[in-house]
């Protein structure tokens, strides 16, 4: 599909980095603040949609995105099944353990003045699942927009 005007392309170039940083913030802070994997993934996915509308969908790899989507889902399900090692499905085996992945203990309210405050490196499998869902939603939404764009222009450019 054709590229759009220089105004649109410049605005998308300027907005790319702040929107990506905001989406990554929403995904990484999913266990602390409102938002999470789906919301941050939808933000970065809409960023990808803006990029595709402005620059065209020719240079994008559908197989890579499809693999990322399947990989995110596999990580999510695998994290759930790994909880069976500790005896329960979706057991949070990373929280407060020795494995250095999001393993800090959640602080009690006593040491802090604000009750919502907690370090980022907490949450255990919740944070891992948020990251997996974020990657999966980014890949899935980008794939949907690419498919719609190529389908809409198939008659004009031959797909």
């Amino acid at each position: 599909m054709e590229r759009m005007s220089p105004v649109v392309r410049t605005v998308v170039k300027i907005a790319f980095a702040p929107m990506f940083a905001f989406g990554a913030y929403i995904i990484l802070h999913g266990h602390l603040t409102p938002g999470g994997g789906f919301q941050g993934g939808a933000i970065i996915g809409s960023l990808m949609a803006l990029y595709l509308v402005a620059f065209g969908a020719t240079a994008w790899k559908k197989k890579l995105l499809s693999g990322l989507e399947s990989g995110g889902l596999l990580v999510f399900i695998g994290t759930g099944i790994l909880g069976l090692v500790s005896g329960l499905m979706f057991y949070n085996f990373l929280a407060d353990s020795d494995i250095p992945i999001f393993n800090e203990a959640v602080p009690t309210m006593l040491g802090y003045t604000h009750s919502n405050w907690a370090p980022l490196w907490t949450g255990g499998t919740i944070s891992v699942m948020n990251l997996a869902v974020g990657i999966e939603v980014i890949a899935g939404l980008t794939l949907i927009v690419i498919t719609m764009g190529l389908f809409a222009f198939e008659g004009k450019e031959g797909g």
Partner: protein
Amino acid sequence: MVEWTTFLYDATHLMVLIGIVASALMVVKFKDLISATIALAACSLLVSLEFLILQAPDVAIAEAAVGAVLTTAIFIFAIKGSRRREEY
């Protein structure tokens, strides 16, 4: 005596609700489909503001990202694949 902050809060809420209804009516009334899509995006943005007012910031983020940007992009792709004016 009316509390000033409560009045401002309710006035903002009412204006957002009126804006939702007005933009939804615009979506139905416009014959230019690109204009109707932009009105739909505005409706989505106001709905996400309404979610924020009703203390659901989680839903508001998802609604703003999906409703205001992704749906608009997909609708614009679909309109580019067909005709721009609605026939009536």
